[in-house]
């Protein structure tokens, strides 16, 4: 026998076969497109934000099973969430874990550490830390695993200064390999 393939658990295959939130939002508050030339994943996420709350979220594009299932779970997770929730979640994660979830640890692109962000993050070699953070974020263990392995970063915040009240979002697809 080879390695066990938890990665291809029933739940993931099911999300892949019937992805949630697939489609487009016309005139979204924000959308972000990412293409990964290594594996050919090509995903766009659209958010409709109203009063600091993610009213609707959809994704379109092509990708492997892990990536599609991940987008499906990720969009399920962020739907209806507010930035306030993100802050609370982050503080809880910091309290519960020995290593605090600092913005610069979770996300290299975060410049401001004030925490005014919904912050779903997984990155780099900090696998353990990442996993801890993700498990806080996802009720489903399979969901956490998928996103950890996909290493996606969904990053939503409010820009301070010049572009006040403009939301920005960043999705980064890094191949599992």
């Amino acid at each position, binding site marked *: 026998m*080879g390695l066990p393939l938890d990665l*291809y658990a029933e739940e993931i*295959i099911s999300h892949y076969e019937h992805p949630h939130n697939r489609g487009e939002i016309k005139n979204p508050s924000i959308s972000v497109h990412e293409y990964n030339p*290594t*594996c*050919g994943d*090509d995903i766009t996420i659209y958010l409709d934000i109203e009063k600091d709350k993610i009213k609707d979220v959809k994704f379109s594009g092509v990708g*492997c*099973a892990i990536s599609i299932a991940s987008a499906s779970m990720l969009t399920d997770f962020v739907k209806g969430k507010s930035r306030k929730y993100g802050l609370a979640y982050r503080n809880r994660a910091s309290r519960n874990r020995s290593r605090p979830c600092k913005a610069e640890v979770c996300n290299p692109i975060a410049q401001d550490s004030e925490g005014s962000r919904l912050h779903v993050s997984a990155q780099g070699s900090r696998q353990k830390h990442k996993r801890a953070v993700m498990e806080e974020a996802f009720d489903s263990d399979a969901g956490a695993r998928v996103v950890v392995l996909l290493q996606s970063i969904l990053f939503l915040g409010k820009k301070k200064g010049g572009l006040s009240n403009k939301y920005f979002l960043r999705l980064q697809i890094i191949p599992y390999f």
Partner: protein
Amino acid sequence: MKSDKMDFDIEKIRADFPILKIKMNERTLVYLDSAATSQKPRQVIDAIVDYYKNYNANIHRGLYRISEKATEEYTESKAKVAKFINASGKEEIIYVKNTTEAINLAALSWGDANIRKGDRILISEMEHHSNMVPWMVLAKKKGAILDYIQLDKGNSKLDMKSFEKMLENRPKIVAVTHVSNVLGTINDVKEIIKKAHRKGAKVLIDGAQSIPHMKVDVKDMDADFFAFSAHKMLGPTGIGVLYAKTDILNSMEPLMTGGDMIKSVAYDSYTWNDLPWKFEAGTANIADGIAFGAAIDYLNGIGMNKIREHEKRLSKYTLEKLEKIKGVKIYGPGLDDLDNRGGVVAFAIGSIHPHDVAQIFDSEGIAIRAGHHCAMPLVTQKLNQAALSRMSFYLYNKESEIDAAIAAIGKVKKIFKIG
């Protein structure tokens, strides 16, 4: 055929490759990605270590013994390469980083001096990015026109009618691959060169996927330029070759200038060094150049015709097995055309994303490539796939490894519940 097979002692060959003994979980690594890079025999690894341990010194200057030895070994490796491809001599062997750099050198030096506004450059639809982008950039810079030789109806070979039609545009240069890294197609480069020369074009052959696997004779095919990498032919990374005919190299200007490529310098003048050093500015990649020589020795020891026959057997074995699996689509020349196919087999399993395929293969300890194989227009625009899975073979692969790959396809189908 049988006696050929007995002649080819696969276990003896495999014993020379340390990496083939490593375990991926309890399984021995099955390496089916030699088109990306080949594994290295201990003879090549030892040559690198030997240089650094026993005679590490700069070349072309030291008047002491270890420098003389380093110079000798490095120069000797060029002589080995020249003989291996039947060039006129080491003067025609320019060491560069890899195939990509070799093609860029041709495009940036020869192309820059010879391509003018409105000129035509002819490449093909099956090119790797490395034999496409440098010509696109050159065409854009010069206001030249880039034409493509089309694929045949089956999308597996070059359409020679299309080639002949394109030649009527009188291209200044034709640049085509010898073997496609996606389709495995072996192009009839001798015929292509003959026809192109008749119309006055120079020809560059991208030999990255051919020279590791078959006998190449640049004189017989009459190539003006021939580009390849050491790392795909058992040698180290970081070294490759631009072969070109002496008169062409003499007419070309170096891209990089400085030390070693110069014969003499005064405050107000300079003279280029002789070939091949004119194109190699600064301290060379000495260790890898020397180890490249060891790789050539190893290949000669086995024999290129035997390697080709072995890979042909593996391709036949693979295609026969794959054709029986429902839902698997194979690209490139088929079983009836094995003479025109190298040891590269690209395939798709239903609509399953190749990234998933490669990941499941990896769970079985099998290394294959998934993606667009740096031939994005071919994969996405011609074959209409976002990506493809690819197995590729070399002299150290054996039938039981292909059996493992076939079993892994079964696992993929089971996970994705396709019949």
